[in-house]
């Protein structure tokens, strides 16, 4: 075995018989503390008036946008020009006949 192979072999076996590292003895307490903090962050925020106000504003904004989209999506003028004229003509005719009678 040459030096290079010896080196590789030494490095590869350097973790043979490795002992397990000890975890923090207070890990359980740290976990419980962290869970309490996470819960504390989430619930009060949802209950806060600022959150409720913000949510309400966003809802109103979304609703307004939806209404605007619906309003512009619906075609208002479906009648053709000729049909519009036909609607107007009876009125004009009646007026003209009235004027003739005067």
């Amino acid at each position, binding site marked *: 075995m040459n*030096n290079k192979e010896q080196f590789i072999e030494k490095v590869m076996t350097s973790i043979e018989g490795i002992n397990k590292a000890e*975890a923090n003895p207070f890990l359980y307490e740290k976990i419980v503390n962290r869970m309490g903090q996470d819960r504390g962050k989430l619930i009060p925020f949802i209950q806060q008036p600022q959150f409720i106000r913000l949510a309400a504003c966003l809802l109103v904004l979304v609703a307004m946008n939806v209404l605007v989209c619906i309003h512009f999506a619906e075609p208002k003028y479906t009648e053709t020009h000729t049909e519009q004229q036909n609607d107007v003509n009876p009125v004009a005719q009646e007026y003209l006949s009235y004027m003739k009678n005067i």
Partner: protein
Amino acid sequence: MNQDHFVSALRQGDSTAFKELVEQYKKPVYNTGLGMLQNEEDAEDVAQEVFIQVFQSISQFKGDSKLSTWIYRITVSKSLEFIRKKRTKKRFGFVSGLFGNEYLLDQSGKKEFYHPGVAMENRELSAILFKSINGLPENQRIAFILHKLEQISYQEVAEVMQVSLSSVESLIFRARQNLQKELGEVYKNYEG
């Protein structure tokens, strides 16, 4: 307490059972994290996240594997998540730095890692090995760490990684080959 009773107690939010769970599994969880992350603070951070995840997801444990297998799986997953988040922070920090924001180089990736469980006479050589392990493809790294550091069987590694036994054998074989190749390169610059 057998596994079923233990899991049942955990599902009911029994704090005594949860404490027992942490005491029983904190060493393997911490050590797996330490092998993956090569940093004691990060490993402890991940260990906390693992147990919180176990507590929150215990209802999803179907009992089709051992509890230890499930916990190892969560540990590996959380470790990988941690590594990815750290990489994203580094990238973002670099981009942010281009716009004039102070970019602090995270030097932790460049520090040598001395595993606290390695014998004194092997410290320097093991640091070289850990650095090379860091350069392995993800699946090879996971399999190598679980088998060589955690000393769990090929069968359990396969269950943790949810792959076949032959896949694990192949991953570890390729991991060794890659490590030997990398160490050959390191030898050229080594002044040990």
